[in-house]
C-alpha cells in the first residue's frame, strides 16, 4: 500500500494534481513528486482574466497559470492548461448570478468543486489513465470500513470541508487531499524547502471571478438589466427607504443598508431579515427576527453511513451542522426527507441563516453530507422564510 492507499509502487501510480498556481496545490504536487509518484499537473483556465478585472490574491488569473507552470518546471512534472471557460461560465458564474437574483447568497466555490473540478477535471484525469486526482484542499480523506470518508482538516483555521460537501462517494474514492493533516505554516515551510517561488504568495480571499468583492457588479454584468431598485421595508410594514437591488444584500447583513440613522423600536439595530426579489423588497428588522430553529435543505449529498428510512423519517439523527463557512458547527437533529430534501432542527436558534448557503452535516470531524439551504422557519415569525422561488 503506498501513501495514497493504492497497492502500487509510487512510480507506477499516476496522480493528476489540480494546480491553481497557489501555494497549497503547488506543495501538493511537490510532495507527491518527491514521494516518487507519476505526477501530472493540470491548471484550469476558468475565465478570461483579461476580461475580468485583474487583482492579486484571487485564484485563477493569468499570473496563476504562469505560477503553476513555473512550479511544474521546477519540480519536473508535465503540466497542462485546460480551457474550462465555457463550462465555468455556464455551470458556476450563471448559477451564481441567478442565485443572487433569487434573493439567495450562493457559494460558487462549491459549484466549481462540484461541477468543474470533481466532475469534468476528474473525468479528464481518468481519461489520462490516472489512479487518483489530488488537490490542495485542507480536508482529510480517511479510508473507512464502508469506503472513503471525508473528515475535517487537522487545522481548524484552514478546514475547507464546508466547500466540499457535494463530493460524491464515487468521486471521493478517486480523490486525495495530501494537505489535510498539515497547518498552513507547515505547508509554507514545505514550499520553501522545495524552493517554490509561490511559498509566500498570499492566500486567495475572494471568489476568483469577483474582483474587489463586489458581487452586485458582477451580477449586473452577467445579467444586464436584472438589478432593479426597490423598497427597504421594516417587518412591521413601514417603508424605510430605497435600495439599488436585492443583490446588494444578504440575510443577516447589518451594515451598509442605506437607511442610516433609522433604527427600530427601543433603538435596536436593524438587520436584513429576508429578501423578496419578486417584489424587489429588502425586509429588515431587529436581530430577534433573524432567529431560526428549523432549516429546510434540498439537493442533499449523503456521505455518511446509510440511514434506515424509518429512522431518517421519524427520529432523525443527532449531528452538528454548519450553516455558513465561517461559523462553528452547532448541534442539530437531521431528518432526511423525500427527493433529496431534509429538515434540520437546530437545538438553539441561529441568526442570519441565508438561503443559497450550504448546510453541512458533521459527526465529530466526519462530514456526513449536506444540502443547499432552501428555507428556514421556527423563529419569532411563523411560516417558512425562503427565497420566493425556493421549494
Amino acid at each position, binding site marked *: 500500500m503506498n501513501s495514497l492507499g493504492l497497492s502500487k509502487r509510487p512510480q507506477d501510480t*499516476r496522480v493528476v494534481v489540480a494546480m491553481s498556481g497557489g501555494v497549497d496545490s503547488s506543495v501538493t504536487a511537490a510532495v507527491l*513528486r518527491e514521494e516518487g509518484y507519476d505526477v*501530472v499537473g493540470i491548471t484550469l*483556465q476558468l475565465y478570461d482574466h483579461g476580461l475580468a478585472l485583474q487583482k492579486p490574491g484571487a485564484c485563477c488569473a*493569468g499570473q496563476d*497559470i504562469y505560477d503553476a*507552470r513555473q512550479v511544474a*518546471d*521546477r*519540480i*519536473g*512534472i*508535465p503540466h*497542462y*492548461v*485546460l*480551457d474550462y471557460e465555457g463550462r465555468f461560465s455556464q455551470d458556476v458564474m450563471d448559477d451564481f448570478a441567478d442565485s443572487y437574483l433569487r434573493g439567495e447568497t450562493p457559494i460558487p466555490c462549491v459549484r466549481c468543486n462540484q461541477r468543474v473540478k470533481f466532475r469534468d477535471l476528474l473525468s*479528464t484525469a481518468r*481519461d*489520462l*489513465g490516472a489512479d487518483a486526482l489530488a488537490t490542495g484542499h485542507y480536508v482529510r480523506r480517511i479510508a473507512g470500513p464502508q469506503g472513503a470518508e471525508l473528515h475535517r482538516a487537522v487545522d481548524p483555521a484552514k478546514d475547507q470541508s464546508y466547500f466540499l460537501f457535494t463530493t460524491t462517494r464515487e468521486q471521493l474514492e478517486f480523490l486525495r487531499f495530501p494537505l489535510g493533516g498539515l497547518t498552513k505554516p507547515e505547508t509554507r515551510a514545505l514550499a520553501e524547502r522545495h*524552493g517554490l517561488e509561490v511559498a509566500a504568495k498570499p492566500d486567495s480571499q475572494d471568489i476568483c471571478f469577483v474582483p474587489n468583492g463586489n458581487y452586485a457588479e458582477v451580477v449586473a454584468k452577467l445579467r444586464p438589466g436584472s438589478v432593479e431598485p426597490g423598497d427597504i421595508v421594516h417587518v412591521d410594514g413601514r417603508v424605510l427607504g430605497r435600495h439599488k437591488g436585492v443583490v446588494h444584500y444578504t440575510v443577516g447583513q447589518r451594515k451598509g443598508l442605506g437607511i442610516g440613522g433609522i433604527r427600530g423600536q427601543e433603538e435596536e439595530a436593524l438587520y436584513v431579515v429576508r429578501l423578496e426579489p419578486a417584489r424587489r423588497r429588502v425586509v429588515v428588522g431587529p436581530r430577534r427576527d433573524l432567529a431560526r430553529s428549523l432549516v429546510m435543505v434540498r439537493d442533499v449529498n449523503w456521505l455518511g453511513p446509510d440511514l434506515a428510512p424509518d429512522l431518517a423519517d421519524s427520529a432523525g439523527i443527532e449531528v452538528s451542522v454548519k450553516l455558513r463557512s465561517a461559523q462553528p458547527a452547532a448541534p442539530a437533529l437531521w431528518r432526511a426527507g423525500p427527493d433529496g430534501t431534509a429538515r434540520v432542527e437546530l437545538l438553539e436558534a441561529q441568526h442570519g441563516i441565508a438561503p443559497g448557503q450550504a448546510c453541512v452535516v458533521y459527526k465529530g470531524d466526519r462530514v456526513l453530507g449536506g444540502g443547499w439551504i432552501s428555507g428556514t422557519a421556527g423563529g419569532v415569525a411563523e411560516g417558512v422564510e425562503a427565497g420566493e422561488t425556493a421549494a
Partner: protein
Amino acid sequence: MTAPFVPSFRRTGVYLDHNATAPLKPEVKAAMGQAMDLVGNPSSVHAFGRSARRAVEEARAAVAALVGVKPAQVLFTGSGTEANNFALRGFPGHRLLTSAIEHESVLAAQPDTERFGVSRDGVADLDDLERRLAGSDAPALVSLMLVNNETGVIQPVTDAARIAHARGALVHCDAVQAAGRLPLSPSDLGVDLMTLSAHKLGGPTGVGALILAEGLEPDALIRGGGQERRKRAGTENLLGIVGFGAAARLARDGLAETADLATLRDRLEREALTAMPRARVMGAGAARVANTSCLMLPGLPGETQVMTLDLAGVAVSAGSACSSGKVKPSHVLAAMGEDDRSAASAIRISLGWTSDDEAVDRFLTAWIAMARRSAPVDG
C-alpha cells in the same frame, strides 16, 4: 537545488508535430554556427559589415531559388505570422477575402476580413469566392493558403488566383506548410504575394519571408531603417536568415523524400482506422500533402488525447495551441461542417525529416491503447 528532473520520455520521445515546428536540421545548425563568427552589422560599410551582408544575400538567393523568384523579390520577416500580417496590411483600401480555414495570422491580421467557405473535405469553395468578388468592384486582396496546417489539404490556389485576377484582385498565398513538401512557385500558382517560414523547413524559429511579385509595393510594415527595401526596418536577424537559407537549400534538394512520408502516413492512417473503425481521417477525400494526418476519435477531446499521448512520449497537437498552452476547438474543422464536439476531438499528426517506421509504430501503440480505454460515447 538540483537541476530540474527531466522525465525519460522527454529525452526519448517521438516527435510527430512537424507542422508546429520541424527539428532543426544538422546542416542548418552548422551553417548557423559558422555565422555566429560573423562580426558586422549587414548595414555597415566596412569589411565586417560586407561579409555579414554577403551571408544575408546568399540566404536570400537560396530562399528565392526554393520558390523560383529573383532574390530581390524576397523580404525577410520575423516569422510567417509577420509575413501574413505584412501582406494583408500592406494594401490599405483593399477589401480582404480569405478562406475560413486560414491561420489565425491571416484571419486576424485586419478587422472586417471576409471569409469564404470550404467543402466538407476542407477544400476552399471557389464559387463562394467568385460570388463574393462579383458583389463589388472595390479593389480586393484574396488570401488562400496552399496547404492547410491542420488537415494537410492542398488548396486550389491556381484556380483561386485566376478567378481573383479576372476581377482585378491581388492574391496572397500562405505557403508556410507547403514549402519543402510541394514544388513551389508563385508564378506557376499565379499569386502576387507568398508567405514562407523557416522553422517548418527544419530552419530556425524567428524568421520568415514575404515573396513579392515584381513591381508590387506593399506599405512598409516597420519604419526606421533601410533594411528589406525600407519595408521592414531593423537590423537583420543574421543567424536566423543564414539558417533559413540553409534550410531552403536542403528543402529544394529534399522534395523526393516526401514520397516516403506518404508511405508512412498512409500506413499510420490505415492501421489506426483498422484498429478503431469509429475514428475518421479529416480531409481524406481531398488531395493532401504527404506528411499530415488529422485523425478524429469521436468522444475523446483532442486536448485529452494530446496529453495522454504526451505522457506516453508521443508529441502531436490539437487545434492550435495559444501561448498559455490551452487548446481551442479547431476553427478549421468547424468550417468543414463538423459540430463543436467533433471539431474538438481531432488531433494532428505531422511527419517530417526525423520520422521513421519506429515513430509511427510508437504512435500507433499509444494511440490504440488510448482509444481502447476511452469508452465510445457517440461513435
